[in-house]
């Protein structure tokens, strides 16, 4: 039994080490949040760790919503200092933050990300409109006479519009938990749905029904939830030329020899088109800084400065190489100034 006493003591010692360890001050920035911003934030963090005397920040990929939840849990070193988001913070989240003592938050917009609908180069290039995408993917669509809503009957792209290829509708995309899916729903489906009188009419009469009709994605197998992993979607598209996939622009950028991005509203998803806003499906990316931690956690201001330097987020910066679409010079200047002064967000 002697051995076991010793082991018990060892565990007790370990536990006490663990507890005292937690007590000493954190000297490393902790960042949580969106998986879309993750590749960009990690690139900045690595550069920051290499070029300054501070430790490399630890970045968790928790998703935008999950990140903001952790971020808003309170002030203090057990909470993260910065959260990345692929959408703007919601009013309700600002309120939660304030309730937990996180009062001053600096919003830093870092650039844009395009969402593409791409397919294999072996298959014809699609030229779609938002309405056509809606008709292909929505759960309920207006009937042919446009009077009522019916379950989506379209099986083939040709049935939607005779100019589209004669192919089965098969779209691989992210699940509802994903920020990419949120953005896709908002930027494509919810915009397109109001173009149909039958759905637009619901807006006044039945708000819940209107929302369901706009955001509902079909569940009969034509839309396949392919998980959060965009690389997986890319691989599946290579194997299956009929299918289209929905994912972030940076994955199309890396796989341009295998895939081509469908034109939406007549505009192809290129770096330039997303940058000047002519490609219609793009969203802004952000990160949020907890002002109360600046000065307590070393390196916060320097990290923000590193991120907002032209070397990183500029037109020729290393983030652009990774697929981030930069803002124009004037907007960058404005955001950089606000970030430097830690101007708190007001909503």
């Amino acid at each position, binding site marked *: *039994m002697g051995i*076991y006493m010793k*082991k*018990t003591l*060892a*565990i007790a010692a*370990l536990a006490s*080490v*663990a*507890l005292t*360890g*937690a007590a000493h001050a*954190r000297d*490393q920035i*902790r960042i*949580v949040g969106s*998986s879309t911003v*993750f*590749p960009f*934030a*990690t*690139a900045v*963090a*690595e550069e920051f*760790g*290499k070029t300054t005397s501070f*430790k*490399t920040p*630890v*970045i*968790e*990929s928790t998703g935008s919503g999950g990140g903001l939840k952790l971020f808003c849990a309170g002030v203090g070193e*057990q909470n993260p200092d910065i959260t990345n988001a692929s959408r703007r913070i919601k009013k309700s989240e600002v309120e939660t933050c304030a309730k937990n003592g996180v009062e001053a938050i600096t919003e830093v917009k870092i650039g844009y990300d395009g969402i593409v609908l791409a397919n294999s*180069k072996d298959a014809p290039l699609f030229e779609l409109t938002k309405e056509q995408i809606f008709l292909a993917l929505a759960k309920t669509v207006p009937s042919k006479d446009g009077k009522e809503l019916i379950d989506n009957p379209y099986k083939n792209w040709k049935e939607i519009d005779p100019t589209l290829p004669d192919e089965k509708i098969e779209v691989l995309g992210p699940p509802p938990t994903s920020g990419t899916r949120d953005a896709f729903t908002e930027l494509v489906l919810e915009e397109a749905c109001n173009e149909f009188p039958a759905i637009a009419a619901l807006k006044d009469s039945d708000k819940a029904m209107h929302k369901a009709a706009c955001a509902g994605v079909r569940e009969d197998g034509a839309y396949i939830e392919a998980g*959060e*992993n*965009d*690389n*997986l979607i890319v691989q599946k598209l290579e194997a299956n030329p009929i299918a289209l996939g929905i994912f*972030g622009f*940076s*994955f199309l*950028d*890396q*796989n*341009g*020899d295998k895939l*081509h991005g469908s034109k939406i509203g007549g505009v192809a998803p290129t770096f330039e088109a997303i940058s000047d806003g002519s490609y219609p499906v793009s969203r802004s990316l952000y990160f949020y800084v907890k002002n109360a931690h600046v000065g307590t956690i070393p390196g916060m201001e320097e990290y923000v400065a590193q991120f907002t330097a032209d070397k990183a987020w500029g037109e*020729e910066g290393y983030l652009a190489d*990774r*697929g981030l679409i930069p803002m124009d010079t004037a907007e960058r200047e404005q955001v950089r100034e606000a970030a430097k002064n830690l101007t708190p967000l007001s909503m």
Partner: protein
Amino acid sequence: MTDMASLMEDRAAANADASDQRKPVDWDSADMSRSIKKRYAAERRFKTYGLTAIMLALAALVLLGYSIISKGYSAFVQTYVQIELTFDPAVIDPDGTRDPAVLGRANYDGLIKDALRARFPDVTSRSEKRKLYGIISSGASYDLREQVLDKPSLIGQTRKLWLISGDDFDMLNKGYISADTQEASRRLDDDEIGWFQTLQSANAIEKRFHTRFFTNGDSREPELAGIWGAAVGSFYTLIVTLLLSFPIGVAAAIYLEEFAPKNRLTQIIEVNINNLAAVPSIVFGLLGLELYLNVMHLPRSAPVVGGLTLALMTLPTIIIASRAAIKAVPPSIRQAALGLGASPVQTVSHHVLPLAMPGILTGTIIGMAQALGETAPLLMIGMVAFIVDIPGSAMDAATVLPVQIYLWADSPERAFVEKTSAAIMVLLAFLILMNGLAVFLRKKFERKW
């Protein structure tokens, strides 16, 4: 005994009756040979089912191995480019002090860029130059810095150096980017491929063993990313798991097998241990989040928390395996020890436990191997994170091998595909090693009674 004897007599009598009434079996009759044929056919079918099952499993294994190895083997080599580089004293050490602080701060990146421009003097436009700089990885400047700090006499010299190439160039050299596709749809344009061919014909491109993959932490540059940070994280996590779950698990098993009274309460405990073994691992992650992070305020992402959480998950496995091993020790051993005057504690610690140890160790190692491959509970406690620095203790932020695989599989850069497969190979190697150790220990300490 009398019961038994009478039963035997009855059966013999019954047999005698039957043989009186029935004709002897004609083994050569058509009926019988058909029946025998059927039985043999059934037996063959049964064997075939078993063989097919094994073949299917083997085919799946071979396919898995093939797909991982064929994708991943190239990650163990890395493309290097030879360029002529001048260690310009004006850049490295303008005042000639040879002060290491000055040498460490110098712009080595600039030296590499100068060397590349000198190699391809036709390149003038800004965007062309940016592409040119992509030939050499951004990590090469750190190599140069170390070389200079190591040997300051290099300053002022011009040397032909092999420098690590960027990921796109590496992909081109390994044949993952084809020069035959259209220029617009390639990661590299015609100019870059032209530079590559120029360098190649000058024998200035070479593949070398990729040591960095085994010594570096994570990186966003595929050519600089390594597995060591995650391996160290896995090591610390497993140590904590082992220190905690092995003694507690074995103690619980000994108590339940040797000392616990057999009553309703111990039955409930037993059933619940078996239930716990079947609980999905993410549930333990949630428990770890609540208990260790929210109540005990341990740091996020630390291997100590990962270890504590995985210990919860491994405990039932160890308890069940240990109980089975202790149960398998023959009662005669205990009776002999007690008969010779050993106390119950001595009996257990001197006799039962050593004899049960091979089984306990096997169970523990299998539990550990399970913990090594686990990601789901670690998601909850923040170990799914980008961490560059190699952890120095169980309190530093760290990630583990399977999480590293997951993170690389999710990265857009093409070069991470081979890294992912290579990391899987490393993880599989560790698992095979651990299972091999379990087999070895069992064979070495096995006792036959």
